[in-house]
């Protein structure tokens, strides 16, 4: 085992770092959190800069315009961009990380040609229409209905947790095309042009107060059959195939940010009063910060193991669910500890010194829910990794 990077990896890191040092100052100022048009413009501008520099679709195969970077390079890229404070994928999130890879794996050449280059250049923003109010942990129970009418599917129903829906050009949409089949077998994957009549987007206010997410309502929305990716009723497999792209890098940005957050909280603890001294003078507080730091370090090592393993085997290992479960617990602890350290300073949520830490506290609550709750992760690990028996249903 060797944790050092190869010479070529180090060269890659140096290149990325040099480019970031040059590129970041050229970015326009970051728009306000609620100015969606400006946010789209900002994020897609950044995407275009990445494209021009050859970093767009860092882990996409080069035949589809990506860089075809190795998982280790991908790790380095994510680490460096996060450390440099570069914008993350933002509104390009679904296109780059989910819809794009799905098209690469499953779409026709026409579909690929129509979308992949535009996603990479930041010309096309995608959103995801998977979850429904009644289909959360049990995603496959989705009910949004598509009925074939000539050469169109006619869609009625509702999606939820659709991020950036009001600035998206397209959506990846899962619909039920066979109501009689077992639930995983009657689902179809469609490319949804967001300007199709009959779509209503309502911002969804979260407990963070923001509205990056929306509910999307469908009333007789007509989608051409040629927008189908994969076979009819094979959409569940199509949607899942993207997960096999995962090479352990999904949480790298998160993790690097969390490590920073701990450092910042330790700094803050040295300043905030507690009893007759600072919060940092408190043995218990200090130990809790030390434990969290060790746990995040552990997850950093685990990430490298997962990446190495996936480089060797070509498939994602067990690291993902382990990461998610453990990371959720650590982030909850970190958030709760921050609230205790802040005291009444936490009440001014958008001001210094609270802002990042209160946002982090609330963010933790989404980490243990989104993309498979803590409870679902424990099911996955116990059943799929430990081979424990399923519950009777």
């Amino acid at each position, binding site marked *: 085992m060797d944790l050092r990077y190869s010479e070529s990896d180090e060269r890659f890191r140096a290149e990325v770092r040099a480019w970031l040092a040059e590129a970041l100052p050229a970015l326009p100022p970051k728009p306000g959190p609620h100015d969606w048009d400006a946010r789209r413009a900002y994020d897609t501008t950044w995407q275009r800069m990445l494209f021009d520099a050859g970093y767009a679709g860092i882990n996409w195969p080069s035949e589809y315009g990506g860089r075809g970077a190795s998982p280790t390079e991908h790790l380095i890229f994510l680490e460096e961009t996060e450390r440099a404070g570069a914008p993350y994928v933002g509104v390009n999130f679904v296109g780059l990380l989910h819809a794009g890879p799905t098209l690469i794996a499953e779409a026709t050449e026409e579909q690929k040609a129509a979308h992949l280059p535009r996603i990479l250049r930041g010309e096309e923003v995608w959103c995801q229409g998977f*979850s429904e*109010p*009644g289909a*959360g*942990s*049990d995603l496959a*129970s989705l009910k949004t209905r598509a009925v074939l009418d000539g050469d169109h599917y006619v869609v009625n129903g509702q999606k*939820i*947790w659709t991020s950036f829906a009001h600035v998206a050009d397209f959506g990846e949409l899962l619909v039920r095309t066979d109501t009689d089949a077992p639930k995983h077998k009657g689902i179809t994957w469609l490319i949804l042009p967001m300007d199709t009549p009959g779509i209503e987007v309502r911002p*969804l*206010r*979260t*407990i963070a*107060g923001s509205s990056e997410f929306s509910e999307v309502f469908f009333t007789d929305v007509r989608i051409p059959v040629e927008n189908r990716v994969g076979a009819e009723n094979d959409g569940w497999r199509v949607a899942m195939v993207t997960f096999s792209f995962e090479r352990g890098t999904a949480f790298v940005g998160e993790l690097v940010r969390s490590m920073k957050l701990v450092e910042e909280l330790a700094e803050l603890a040295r300043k905030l009063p507690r*009893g007759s001294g600072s919060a940092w003078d408190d043995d*218990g507080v200090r130990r809790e910060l030390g434990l969290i730091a060790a746990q995040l370090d552990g997850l950093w090592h685990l990430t490298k193991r997962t990446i190495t393993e996936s480089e060797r085997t070509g498939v994602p290992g067990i690291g993902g669910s382990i990461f998610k479960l453990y990371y959720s617990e650590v982030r*909850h602890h970190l958030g*709760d500890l921050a*609230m*205790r350290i*802040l*005291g*009444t*300073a*936490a*009440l*001014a*949520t*958008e*001001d210094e010194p609270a802002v990042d830490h*209160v946002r982090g506290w609330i963010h933790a*609550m*989404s980490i*243990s*829910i*989104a993309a498979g*709750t*803590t*409870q679902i992760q*424990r*099911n996955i690990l116990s059943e799929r990794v430990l081979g424990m028996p399923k*519950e009777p*249903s």
Partner: protein
Amino acid sequence: MNFDLDQDERALQSAIRDLCKGVFPMETVRGLESSGGISAETWQALEDAGVFSLRLPESEGGAGLGMTAAVIVFEELGRALVPGPLVGTHLAKTLGLNQARVTFANRNDLVISHLDSSDAVAVVDAEGIWLISQNAIAGEPVALPLDPLTPVSRVSSLPQGERVNEGADVSATRLEASALTAALLVGIASAETDLAVAYAKERQQFGRPIGSFQAVKHICADMLTRAEVARAAVYAAGVHLDGNGDGDTARAVTGAMLLASEAAFANGKACVQVHGGMGFTWEIDAHLYLKRAAALIALHGGADTYAEEMAAAL
């Protein structure tokens, strides 16, 4: 020894619960966000119900009740998420002060809740109880407070104020403030349990109510447990403050505040988790309870200080 609500206490509990249902249904409470958590009508309803005056003698327009009754009442206010400077106003009224609304603050803390809607700020410190007129304080409201129904302001300094503790027991007043806050928190802890259980019974996934999965039902069992133990401690705190306890009063109150803080905070987070994605939406009430709990805990010194005080008794 009778540690069960007597007939009068039950009647009081059910009266205040009915009042809350009538005056503070969740739509109304949510509607108060735009007015800093307070409206003249709802406040008047609390006054009329005797929430603030209940410990005054009948001769002074009160009900002649004690802290046991007060914690029962404040538990219900917490359960209904009633906002406003409840603890400060209740204590001010009990001390015979005339201000309509009084908010409580720590001398060393320059973040004050409900400043704009209060007539005065009350501070209890080692030297006494101090009242500072709201006009005398330059506060800067915080744009987005943690609890949307608990507006807070930053102040650069707090004038000394007028000493108002003639005849009052300063340390008892501090303990009363803690016990009433603990009562609000235990009401919150219970409401969070009820919310989570109701949702878990109703929400279907994988062809079953999620409340039939041990992963979910065991979270709810732990919520119940935390709330029930904390409630026993809070009632005991009230009883002790009325002189009817079986141990050290300060310890009973401190323990109650610690357990109620832990219960309300942990249950709030559990309540969000049981609701899954819906728990992360503004529309579901889970976050409002959690945020109120977090705000109350922070404004009253933080759970760690109570744990430290408990240790000092060992």
